[in-house]
């Protein structure tokens, strides 16, 4: 307790009392009132029964595992068993998110390398600026653009049929092609910038030295560039994975009729489903899995969280 007191007095000495108060109030309000308490409330709420408002806080308002049991076992009426529907959706969402992350990594690595290793100049700055412009176009509009491209009478079907590549319109929406393309497009910037920042600081002499020693381009990338860019790869992959797994707009707009994203189930429990505790339980599950994934990525790539988000 005394140590905390000493820390605060040191902090106040260093910044002056008014500034120290501003810093501590702003940061603690943010972290406690806006981040931690809402998460704890949600966590607590996910262990409650779905009660009408007058009964909340009454004798029936006790903790229960009912909502999590529902996720694993399904409805009692359907006769127990396993809730294959929701588990399958969660699994599909995660697999699709990994898939989108890999696509983005494959697309962005060469771009980031070319941009980062090319010489300085206004053309390069313009290219970097051009990367940002599509990112500031609303997420909904980007998804809408892919609806126009991939629709039954869309540009791609139109061009394909005109060229005689296929006869009948291909159902890109139903096949989720539009969804994956749209998601990969939506978060491409978050992959490029960490990669670009990582590769840009690589000394070009290292590449030239490897070339002089007779390394092929594949070897240069495998042995020199990729190991060096590892923090960037981890950071970009984490961001893209988290955003894709937590995406709501693109699956709502571009998702096929037979596919559902896990966030859409959460959304349904909150809106048409009218069961907030169950929605909370599903959100806790999503959050837990995302955190585990980030930890896994950091373990695999041997990077610390301090390197993510730079």
């Amino acid at each position, binding site marked *: 307790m005394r140590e905390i007191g000493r820390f605060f007095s040191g*902090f106040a000495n*260093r*910044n*002056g009392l008014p500034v120290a108060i501003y810093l501590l109030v*702003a*940061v603690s309000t943010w972290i406690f009132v*806006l*981040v931690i*308490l*809402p*998460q704890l*409330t*949600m966590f607590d*709420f996910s262990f409650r029964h779905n009660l009408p*408002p007058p009964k*909340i806080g009454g004798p029936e308002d006790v903790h229960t595992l009912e909502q999590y049991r529902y996720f694993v076992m399904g*409805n009692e009426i359907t006769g127990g068993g396993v809730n294959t*529907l929701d588990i399958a*959706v969660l699994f599909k969402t995660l697999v699709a998110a990994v898939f989108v992350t890999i696509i983005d990594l494959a*697309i962005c690595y*060469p*771009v980031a390398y*070319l941009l980062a290793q090319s*010489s300085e100049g*206004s053309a390069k*700055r*313009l290219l970097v*600026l051009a990367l940002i*412009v*599509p990112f500031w*176009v*609303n*997420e*909904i509009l980007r998804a809408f*653009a892919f609806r126009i491209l991939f*629709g039954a*009478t869309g540009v791609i079907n*139109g061009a394909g049929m005109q060229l005689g590549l296929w006869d009948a*319109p291909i*159902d890109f929406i139903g096949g989720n092609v539009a969804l994956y393309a749209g998601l990969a*497009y939506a978060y491409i910037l978050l992959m490029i910038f960490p990669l670009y920042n990582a590769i840009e600081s690589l000394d070009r002499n290292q590449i030239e030295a490897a070339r002089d020693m007779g390394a092929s381009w594949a070897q240069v990338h495998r042995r020199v560039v990729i190991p060096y860019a590892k923090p960037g790869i981890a950071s970009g992959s984490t961001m893209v994975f988290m955003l894709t*797994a*937590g995406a709501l*707009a693109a*699956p709502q*707009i571009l998702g096929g009729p037979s596919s559902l994203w896990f*966030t*859409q*189930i959460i*959304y349904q429990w*909150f809106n*048409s*489903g009218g069961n907030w505790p169950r*929605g*909370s339980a599903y959100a806790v599950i*999503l959050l837990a899995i*995302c955190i585990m994934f980030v930890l896994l990525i950091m373990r695999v790539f041997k990077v*610390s969280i*301090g390197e993510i988000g*730079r």
Partner: protein
Amino acid sequence: MSNLKAFPTGGLYLLLFFLYLFGPLAVMIVTAFNSSSFPRISPWECLTSDWFFKLFEDETLIAGLGNSFVIGIGVVLVAVPVGLAAAIVLSQVGPHLRSVIYAVFIAPILMPGVVIGLSTLIFWDRLGTFFGADYDSFFYSGMFLTIAGQVTFISAYSMLVFLSRLQRFDPTLTEAALDMGASQTQAFVKVLLPFMTPAILSASVLAFLASMENYNTTVFTIVAESTFTTVLAQKVRYGLDPSISAVAVIIVGITLVGAIIFENYNRLRTQKEARAAAASSVPPVARFATNPLVIIGFVLVCMIGFVTWVGTHDSSVCEANVEQMKRAYQQEQLEQQRNRTPATASEPAEQASPPANTGGGVFSPGNLAPGQPEQEEAPASPFGNVFAPENLQGGD
């Protein structure tokens, strides 16, 4: 860009990449000028600017834009000071504590927006119930909840902006001010804040834009109100309409203007720095033509010119023609059908209608929610119907 010339495949790859980046936007922009009631390029019907006027008449969108604006200002006013404070606190703690605190501060960015939105909603709802507040109070106000929800992660964005600026801050400046007899508050206000001003500006712009375009968090916290993005999402889910493309034209235009201003600002700064250096040997004409500012400016002038030209262009004659052609085509089909099967003459009119809605069945938003679980008895929450789910689900 010597490196790119050395590897033509690399240049080609970059070209393809930027095509992927801008192709969808370009297609969307073009569809805003086609009079076809379904956003598409082919078949091209008539050049029109009607979709823009239709947009300005859309009251829900205008109201949503107003709300988004208020929320954006609110978010900037809270998130930027919080982000600044977080960055300063982070720069003052020791290296070990620093990595722990950094992980906590960065967490809201990594958390799914959906989780932030609904945890904010539940938290303030519980708090409102605990205090026995009215449903009119701020605990249940969509605007307040949205600001709270967005500040949660936008503060972290602005913290990142401040951190990169703080790295270049020379702490001896503050020490010098203190030695000269300034109080710590004075040193903060007169030394650190002026140094941070560019970062404060860019963090404000970033926070405002991030607030404007957020959907995942907002869709939960906005409750009964609406923002620009939620209205847009509703429109897109209801059915495709070229007036949405018109929104895209406006937003892309604004983004380009923003990019020009940003580029201009950067150029001025680099020019100032490079003034001492020797003058470049590139001939002035070439320098002018390759100036990114000139290029973007040229593109923008072309765009504005095009929109104005289309605005004066009268499309009604052309549209009447297309309408007539469609009708003639329908008539023809009808007749053909009648000749073949005289009994069922009432149906073909529908079959012959333009192919605009062939994808209709696929797109109907009801299809997006096939495995919707059974409803529980009564909605437990006071917001059960404030959300008006049928607004979002509808469209069939």
